[in-house]
């Protein structure tokens, strides 16, 4: 296999950094901490360069070249600069305006999207899936109904697990039912869900680990081949 100089240098750097990250298996050490800081700094720098090059600078140019048409970019840039004042002790209050706009806009978009994109369509889908026609014709309708009931029970149980106060001292039966429903069933469902999410995370990161091992093996093989050829 032949390499260009740039590709070869990149491969060696990636190989060394991969081994440096794996050095964490031997315990916390300065090499791992240096690489950790390097990755964080590199990611931050890359994102800054990307945003400056592709998002901010083209809009600055438009504002300069066509100010009458793109005057609103000037307002946005001014608000962004006001946000920087949050780092100054004497001018902190000026950051309230852009922060207020950010939070208000974010909340409005999130709530509106949740209503129009999740709550209403999901509720409509659940209701229409329980039509009497589907219950009469085949088993799938009954399975959907059972699924819907289990979802409702599970949701109420999980919500009940966060209940702090019990209904009342004299209501023993209600207390017992609520204790089982909320604290036992609800917490049990939460633990199962967390376990499933953790398992999913393990499955997701397993390919990354395998990929790194394959890369190390391939790099060593290529280096041996290069040394052999030279």
């Amino acid at each position: 296999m032949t390499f260009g100089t740039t590709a070869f240098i990149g491969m060696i750097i990636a190989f060394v950094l991969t081994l440096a990250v794996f050095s964490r298996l031997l315990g916390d050490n300065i090499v791992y901490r240096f690489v950790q800081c390097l990755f964080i700094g590199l990611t931050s720098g890359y994102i800054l360069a990307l945003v400056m090059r592709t998002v901010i600078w083209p809009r600055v140019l438009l504002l300069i070249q066509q100010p009458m048409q793109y005057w609103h970019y000037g307002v946005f840039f001014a608000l962004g600069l006001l946000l920087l004042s949050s780092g100054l002790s004497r001018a902190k209050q000026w950051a309230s305006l852009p922060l207020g706009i950010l939070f208000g806009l974010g909340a409005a978009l999130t709530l509106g999207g949740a209503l129009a994109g999740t709550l209403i369509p999901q509720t409509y889908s659940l209701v229409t899936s329980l039509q009497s026609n589907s219950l009469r014709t085949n088993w799938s309708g009954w399975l959907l109904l059972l699924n819907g009931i289990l979802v409702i029970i599970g949701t109420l149980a999980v919500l009940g697990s966060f209940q702090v106060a019990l209904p009342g001292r004299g209501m023993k039966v209600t207390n017992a039912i609520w204790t089982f429903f909320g604290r036992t069933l609800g917490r049990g469902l939460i633990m199962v869900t967390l376990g499933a999410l953790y398992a999913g995370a393990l499955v997701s990161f397993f390919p990354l680990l395998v990929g790194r091992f394959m890369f190390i093996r391939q790099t060593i093989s290529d280096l041996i081949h290069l040394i052999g050829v030279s």
Partner: protein
Amino acid sequence: LVALIPIFVHQNPLVNIGGGSSAVLDSFSVPEGSTVLLSFDYGPAYAAELDRLAAIIINKLTSQSAQVLVMSTHPLGMGSAEHAFSGIFPRFAYGEHYVFLGYLPGEEAGLRLLLNGLGTAFIRDYRFQQPLNSYPITSRIPALDQVDRVIVLAESAESVQRWVEQVNSQTHIPLDALVSVLAEPQLEPYYLSGQITTLAGGWPAALEYQALGSLSKADWGFSLGLAGLVVLVFVTVLVISIKQWIIHGKHR
């Protein structure tokens, strides 16, 4: 140790050839000459899992002569896009068949801006920093509602959820989600309600799809390694639980 298995293993009967995910990917198709908005919402951490799916989708789109607009709502996503498109054959010309629109910041606000037109959200293309209307493909498609399909490759369920809530709920453009294994269960309700047209999860879907043709040695060993991991974790938990039970019993 289990992750080292793929280096040595040649065959594995545990890959479920013809499973549900592969059927989904196999049926995935776009009409000839369609315009597709392809969003790479994942970074290098999930590249090992999602690059396979990206390669499958790009092969399908190129074979059907689709026009592809590439973007990302993830800061590191355009790097993943560049890597995924690096292997396409030369007849798929930049500017004529595909364009890199670039990174769209702002999450919900950015996706809402997309509804006002591609030229509002993206000023210049990502690769050469030229005005978008200088390319044939983007000069013909100024608005999002002229896109035939949206395909999102995402590492997290929240990313796809934003697309559903901010874009799909307003335009009803068919939305396909190719996600990590971690995100797939959280998006099932959207798939069952029809808000997501296609849902496929990570490397199992890619492996199953590729198994319909042929798998490389690494792929076979890869899935066996995962099965080994599952067995190892199960045995470890079992041993620890039994040990604790025995110790607890002795103290009593």
